[in-house]
């Protein structure tokens, strides 16, 4: 009980959000306007937790974060799969806005190219081919909406609480950490970076701006070389597999 009193500011928006999403899920008992109101309330209460920085990047953060969250809720609750895919695209764009605020323009552009430009377009491709005769019954009602929303928001709550307790333990250091931490500070999470934890290659050179592609490339091909190579090999194997699985032209496709 004491713990609930201590953490009510975190728990209240979570509970409200879970109720809102449950109400908005497509189905017989869905009350979308009420669910929408509850979700908005959860959003506003959640942003109360965020330490208010009133400068431009602070308000930009609020705009992008709320756009991302609202579109995410609309994505999982929309009845029409095409609209769901489009809301997913908006989620991606919002997240890219957050990347830009964190001085990671290349990550933002690459995410737009890969997710919004290729993956979601492929989703739309499939949905359009599958959906010639209007929405089907499984689009009209969701399965287990209550369990799904409770589980999801429990996970989210656990994640946030873990972040908070982890942040309390970590120490502050490093000049580079300040810029990264500036945005995190607005989340009230206070994730501090230890300068020793950042590899030397990842730090920008003296005459270099933070978030330039040069630094990213250096870091990817020195510290994370094996991860990059393994990822590349995986993609190669996947594409070979796709070619092997695809039917030959003689077998009657294309």
């Amino acid at each position, binding site marked *: 009980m004491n713990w609930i009193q201590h953490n009510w500011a975190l728990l209240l928006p979570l509970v409200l959000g879970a109720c809102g999403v449950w109400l908005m899920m497509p189905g017989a008992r869905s009350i979308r306007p009420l669910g929408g109101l509850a979700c908005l309330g959860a959003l506003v209460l959640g942003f109360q937790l965020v330490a208010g920085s009133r*400068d*431009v*990047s602070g308000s*930009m953060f609020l705009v992008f974060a709320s756009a991302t969250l609202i579109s995410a809720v609309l994505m999982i609750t929309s009845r029409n799969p*095409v609209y769901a895919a*489009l809301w997913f*695209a908006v989620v991606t764009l919002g997240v890219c806005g957050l990347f*830009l*605020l964190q*001085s990671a*323009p*290349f990550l*933002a*552009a*690459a995410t*737009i*190219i890969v997710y*919004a*430009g*290729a993956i979601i*377009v*492929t989703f*739309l*491709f499939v949905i*359009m*081919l599958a959906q010639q005769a209007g929405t089907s019954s499984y689009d009209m009602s969701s399965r287990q909406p209550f369990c799904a929303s409770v589980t999801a928001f429990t996970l989210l709550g656990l994640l946030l609480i873990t972040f908070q307790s982890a942040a309390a333990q970590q120490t502050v250091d490093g000049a580079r950490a300040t810029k990264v931490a500036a945005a995190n500070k607005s989340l009230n999470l206070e994730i501090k970076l230890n300068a020793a934890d950042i590899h030397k290659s990842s730090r920008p050179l003296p005459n270099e*701006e933070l*978030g*330039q*592609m040069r630094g990213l490339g250096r870091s990817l091909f020195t510290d994370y070389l094996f991860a990059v190579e393994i990822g590349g090999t995986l993609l190669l194997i996947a594409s070979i597999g796709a070619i092997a699985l695809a039917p030959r032209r003689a077998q009657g496709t*294309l």
Partner: protein
Amino acid sequence: MSSMFSTLTTFAADAPAPAESGGVVSLVMAQLPTVITIGAALGAVLGAVSYLIYVERKLAAFMQDRVGPNRVGPWGLLQPIADGAKFILKEDVIPEYVDKVLFILAPCIAAMTTMLAFAVVPFGPVDGAPSFMRFIIAPNVDIGMVFIFAIGSLAVYGIILGGWASNNKYSALGSLRASAQVISYEIPLGMSVLGIALLGGTLNIEQILLNQAKGGITQWYVWTQPLACLIFFTAALAESNRLPFDLVECEQELVGGFHTEYSSMKFALFFLAEYTHVITISFLTAILFFGGWHFPGIAEPGSTGLLATGLKFGVLLSKVFAVILVIMLIRWTIPRFRFDQLMGLAWKVLIPLSTANVVAVMTVLQFGWSKWWLTAVSLLLFVVAGAIGVKQAHDALNRSGRRPHAKPETSGGHVAHAH
């Protein structure tokens, strides 16, 4: 865009505690050149688009031995204004069973994304601009090229949604083709520019331009990267859905393709998007491969002053106009591809060639050889690809036994196809 944010955030950092109203006013004042530039660029693009349509119609008429538009004004010069007025005054039909939201959203997305891509394209000498405006909307974007590709990859949404929301089989087929085509051609488009990025060590478009201008005409990337130039131009043409790649709105098969159900201003927005895209890719071709505003003896990087700025601006615009004319000439020169040929061109020709080109650039840079080897490699790759293509076409014709003189009874169909 990122530069816009950094301008905003650095501004906020410079003035730690501004009075609420004073902060807003000076914030607006700081962004005034950007606003003026956006206005000037938008106005210029809109005006240019309407007269490019006139140029295209005149050119089409010339190539087909016709007269072309000549009724409205002298030599038909007022035709674009009449067309514009018609677009505005025409009845705006929204068919009965369409998805209204997406139906209206689609042309907006199409026009917006192509305009947004223009933001990082310098349309004049950036350092010689007057103080109240700039020759680029968002200056100093480190990832300029990647930004253009990112925004360009969003442009396909306009076509897909327009085709799907129309609730029409032909439109849906057009948009399905569009999604496959645009995704495929994004790969060679990005790969072809990688060579330039490696040679210049940057993806910043202004920097790429300056690299060429400082080195003189022999440093234009078209000499060392001719194959990349060709691949970039082809892929960009395919991305903008122009002939010979306009499978998306192929009239003979799909009525009007994705825009069959559109009329009036919504159709005009699609049209505007296509022409803005053409303008953007022409600017990119001129800047990335043909030295931008640089021309020996006329516009050198050292020259300053109003006259020099005007000359540079003029040189860049003439280069861009030349590229646009080439695009329009190609429209009436090369017939439209079949869909499997279109996909084959991207996956079997352009992607391997651009990969080979990137490998060549990396090898030359790694071993410090003369970069003129790249010209030789480009020409060699071009010849080899051509030889393989001819050989395969020859074999395919032989194997199927459908050569005109091989089997007289099937020759009729084949001859018709060959024409």
